[in-house]
């Protein structure tokens, strides 16, 4: 059992941050195992540690490293899921540049189709918030709607966005 959680992190032993990453690795691996099929767990752990090491200068040394690693692992797992949804033949954590380009076009088309499916107000609110970067208060003022109503439209639009072009979600 010990052997299954022992993982060569490839991090320098003498660095204190590397030491913190190494100490957190077993817990990270347990979390990764809940997110991914067993054959992809090591890839996810390695990619998470590599990313943490790359961006270590952005990490607040006073904070715990565990939540930060779990955030990164979850992001990577969801990215892999999103890619797998679009391109089944592509590996989970690696992607060819040509595939990235074609899938980027696909996702733009998917989102355009989704926006067309939304109610006019939902689409307007979603685009203002996520594309134009307007705040809830700004949208509320320009559409003359209470902030709570704007949020309701926004949250409903997000549910539809999450359900995908063919409405796969649970709503």
């Amino acid at each position: 059992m010990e052997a299954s959680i022992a993982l060569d992190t490839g991090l320098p032993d003498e660095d204190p941050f590397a030491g913190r990453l190494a100490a957190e690795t077993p817990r990270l691996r347990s979390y990764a195992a809940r997110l991914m099929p067993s054959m992809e767990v090591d890839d996810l752990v390695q990619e998470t540690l590599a990313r943490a090491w790359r961006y270590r200068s952005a990490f607040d040394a006073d904070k715990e490293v565990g939540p930060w690693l779990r955030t990164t692992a979850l992001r990577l797992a969801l990215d892999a899921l999103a890619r797998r949804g679009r391109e089944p033949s592509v590996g989970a954590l690696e992607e060819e540049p040509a595939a990235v380009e074609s899938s980027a076009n696909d996702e733009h088309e998917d989102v355009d189709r989704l926006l067309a499916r939304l109610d006019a107000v939902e689409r307007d609110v979603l685009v203002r918030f996520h594309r134009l970067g307007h705040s809830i208060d700004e949208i509320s003022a320009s559409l003359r709607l209470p902030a709570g109503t704007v949020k309701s439209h926004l949250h409903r639009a997000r549910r539809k966005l999450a359900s995908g072009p063919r409405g796969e979600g649970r709503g």
Partner: protein
Amino acid sequence: MTTERETFLAAVDEALDARRDPCEVALVQEWIADHPEDGDELARLFRGVDVLARSRPRPRASRKLVPMIAAIAFVALGVHLWTRAPKSVEPPRTSCSRIVSFSLEVTRESEGQSTMVRSEPDHTERNQVSRLGSTLIVSRLESRLP
């Protein structure tokens, strides 16, 4: 179950409303680990939001204008120095040549639009050729310095 899921969805919305990453929220981290079936839906939401954010209109006009304005300012400065140069100052005796005239021509082409700025000591001319569908639009701006 539904109530718990609504709590999860509310946590995702709350984070996105505050423009934070929902993956940072412990409740979201635990929910997806316990309910991987919701991972696909969350992944689609993130992808859609990312695509929307990446398609944010950028101030392209100003990016194109900056080099143009710099070129015109450079020309104007040249004209200004040329016309304001003190007449009484004699050229160095050792010099066997001096500038008697100059002109500067800047042409910029981008996205089906061509802009040419030509400047001479007393005269600046700006020609712009662009295409709107099959219509060719030619504009010309000429200014003469006193």
